[in-house]
């Protein structure tokens, strides 16, 4: 196993609010890392620093050994194309149908022709079970379908790692299952995934490691079994209890 992502003392401030206060993290290839923590803990910001959608104020991010702070724009785009990102609000291109949403990355970034990119895109739509919606526009899809198209769009770039930023938080409860199912199947393929989520069931059953964040810092790192049965920090204990009580 090799390290695919490393964060070293990453800091980020938004207008006086310290979102990240020096985060260190290593992710090995093949890991399913689930990031937990209360809202405002800096989980999404941390995830965005990995592909430099958010540029850290201080500290270093390494992707496959490459230091991003000194990378040129061209190198940065190359890195981003190897990192699949799935957003909370899907962020599908609303003027393109599902098929072209999946194909456009291959056309624009990999220089493939539309014809062959669409052929490939169809395979990825098949993977998420949406070939019948290929010619529908995002506005004609349900939230769960939109998120599955977004996952197919990320997969179509053949990324080395997939980042998920609360992929089910904006969904109707009845639509969460279909998205989690796709994510589970990806995990079973042995893909490297970093998942920010509030889905405890997914964290328990799929994660190979849990990272617990609070106030812009990583507070705890452990296996799912250990995290859910013997959380070390008070914060984690409170967090788990608050989630369990919610039922």
């Amino acid at each position, binding site marked *: 196993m090799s390290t695919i992502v490393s964060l070293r003392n990453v800091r980020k401030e938004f207008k006086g609010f310290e979102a990240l206060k020096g985060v260190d993290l290593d992710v090995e290839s093949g890991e399913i890392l689930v990031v937990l923590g209360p809202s405002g803990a800096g989980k999404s910001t941390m995830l965005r620093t990995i*592909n430099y*959608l958010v540029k850290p104020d201080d500290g270093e991010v390494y992707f496959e050994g490459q230091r991003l702070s000194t990378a040129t724009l061209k190198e940065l*785009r*190359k*890195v*981003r*194309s190897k*990192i*699949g*990102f799935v*957003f909370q*609000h*899907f*962020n*599908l*291109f*609303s*003027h393109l*149908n599902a098929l072209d949403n999946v194909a*456009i*990355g291959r056309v*624009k*970034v990999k220089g493939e022709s539309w014809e062959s990119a669409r052929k490939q895109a169809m395979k990825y739509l098949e993977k998420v079970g949406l070939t019948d919606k290929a010619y*529908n*526009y995002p*506005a*004609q899809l349900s939230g769960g379908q939109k998120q599955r198209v*977004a996952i197919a*769009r*990320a997969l179509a*770039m053949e990324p080395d790692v997939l980042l998920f930023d609360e992929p089910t938080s904006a969904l109707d409860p009845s639509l969460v299952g279909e998205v989690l199912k796709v994510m589970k199947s990806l995990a079973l393929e042995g893909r490297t995934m970093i998942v920010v989520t509030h889905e405890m069931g997914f964290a328990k059953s799929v994660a190979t490691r849990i990272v617990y964040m609070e106030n812009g810092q990583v507070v705890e790192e452990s296996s799912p079994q250990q995290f859910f049965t013997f959380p070390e920090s008070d914060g984690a204990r409170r967090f788990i209890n608050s989630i369990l009580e919610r039922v």
Partner: protein
Amino acid sequence: MRGENISLSRKQFKMNQNVKRIVRKIFTAAGIVLLAAIFYLAIAKVYPFNWGVVARYKSMFLKGLLITFQVSAVSILISFGLGLIFSIMKTSKIEFFKDIASIYVWIFRNTPLLVVILLTYYGVGTIFNLNRFWAAVLALSLFEGAYMTEIIRSGIEAVDPGEIEAAHSLGMTNSQIFLSIVFPQAIRISLPPLIGQMISLVKDSSLASVIALGELTMMGRQVGTSSFATFESYIVVAFIYIMLTSVLSILGRYLERRMSLA
């Protein structure tokens, strides 16, 4: 069996609704024609309409229409181009471009078009030797271009920033993102107000009559004064403007339908 009956009656219901709608529209139209006729006859009692004179000056109206059409068509193209360029400058990250675009919009949205036309013809026109036609085109293009800049800018800003972020996450370049994600959506969003602005441009071109450009309004005035049938002449002018702008509206509606998503 039952379901079939229901869907059949629903279909009939819908058809009835459509028939009712069309009948209503016919009644409305008939009502308006009737009112206009009463109005016309009432006026005709005190003002002797003389349409024969107007018909004799047909060629002048046609000449006016042709020039209005030419000035408007060229100005629409140039003002749209200016709108594109300045809206891109206004939404760019470079402060200098933003300032230039803001000053352009500020000047031309705060000057009356009539004054802009006079300035371009008697000011710029005398220095650079512009004829009436090109002075009018320059004035109209600069003036309407400022409005189009604002329309397209708001279209660009209406594109979901999340989509731009997603495009970055795929590894696309800034220019790819602008051309294939932002721009197509911005144009679709701003199409209805853009068409509205183009219609304004056609109507505003009548102001070019002050620099004696022989467009429709000027021709109408000439026909009116030389034939003494002023009222008739301006009615014809108004009618031609309505026809001309209606063509634009119809074209706009067709484009909107073509560009709408599925």
